[in-house]
């Protein structure tokens, strides 16, 4: 066992972990943030996607100790302070991009990683950004459309508010 400090969703957690614990298990079992899902457990499906220092990674392929000192962001961090959904989440709902919902947290985070860096992505950029996230329900089109819509909403928010930040709590 090892004592370790993690920064998840801008909160500091000091916990005891097993040396070989995966970041995925830390998030789901130790911190009880169960929005992150486990699908394949081997880097194929993207259900376990989280952001680590702003980059999307498969948390099933990161050991928890490797994430010490990094900023981890999970799906639980996306809704806004006033309790409304993040524009990406809202667009997923409105476009019918969610069926069973198992892939959704990972999809939304892949989309966020894209839009944080590239506010006006092409259709190709969007498809590429979710190419590591499998969805067995929707057929992907609606997801790609939702991301396009979210990009527009975020752009509009940005230009409307001038100084007010988009993004998260």
């Amino acid at each position, binding site marked *: 066992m090892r004592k370790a400090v993690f920064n998840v969703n801008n909160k500091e957690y000091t916990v005891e972990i097993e040396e070989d614990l995966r970041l995925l298990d830390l998030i789901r079992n130790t911190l009880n943030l169960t929005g992150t899902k486990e699908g394949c457990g081997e880097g194929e499906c993207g259900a376990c996607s989280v952001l680590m220092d702003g980059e999307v990674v498969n948390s099933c*392929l990161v050991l928890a*100790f490797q994430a010490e000192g990094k900023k981890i962001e999970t799906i639980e961090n996306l809704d806004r302070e006033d309790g409304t959904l993040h524009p990406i989440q809202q667009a997923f709902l409105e476009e019918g991009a969610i069926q069973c919902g198992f892939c959704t947290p990972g999809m939304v985070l892949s989309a966020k990683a894209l839009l944080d860096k590239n506010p006006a992505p092409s259709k190709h950029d969007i498809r590429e950004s979710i190419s590591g996230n499998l969805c067995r329900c929707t057929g992907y089109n609606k997801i790609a459309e939702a991301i396009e819509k979210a990009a527009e909403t975020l752009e509009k928010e940005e230009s409307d508010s001038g100084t007010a930040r988009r993004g998260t709590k």
Partner: protein
Amino acid sequence: MRDLVQNVYQAKDTDSILNLLDQYQDEAKIVAGGTDLIIQMREGNVSPPVLIDISSILEIREIKEEKNTIELGSTATFTDIEKHVFFNHSLSAIAKAARSIGSPQIRNRATVGGNICNASPAADMLPPLLAMDAMVVLKSKQQTRVLPLSEFITGKEETLLKSNELLEKIRFQKLNPNEGLGFSKLGVRNALAIARLSLAVYVEWDENDMCQNVRIASGALGIKAQREWDVERFMKGKCLNNSLFAEVAAFLEESTMKRLAGRSTMNFKRYAVQGVFKQALDEALEDMERRMIYEKGSF
């Protein structure tokens, strides 16, 4: 697998890695991106008592462009390579190879050093680096060794890396205007492709269309990613025309049939290899032309 890992370290600089390796030797395993190792650990194939994480060390992640050489830090990720200006503008075959790997999530973590040290026969980055005649720089507390990548990789998942050594960087020469590099790969799926067959071709052509020098490296065409010395010898000194291409294709088909005799993939790969070769060669020639045009333009 539980309980087996006793100690983990997040190394902060190269010296601390070398000290830890020196202390633990065989007991220690380096983990960078973890995209291969964590799966192997969960399958019970490896169970290292000590893990040394090197993924946060920036000094061995740098991609350095010198006057005549490129140095690739071993923990540069595929995303780093794919996005790097030099590879996008001046050696796009390497950016293409990086982009062809896994998914964005995998590319954000997987490192070039991991790809080399795990030495999977299907490792995507190996053929282009082999075709560039890359050297690996290996560091231990006691010494630094520099070896050709082609010697470093000795077999399926086997290399000459010693237990106290770190692969620090990979180094290769930049190309001249009369040289080009191409890469082509046949994968099963685009997003999560593990190369089923890939070839990288380096060529140096003179003004009479004579092949001065050529290096060809394959992935998943045998027990390891490797140079195709016989094909190279066959091409060298010949003129590029359709009949040469047909001869090389026949040569490749024959050697693939020999090498993969008895394997179920042989019948597929003996044909596929010819198309993949054509693509890689065409790309190498285009690359060379681009470089020549650029060179002329800059005078």
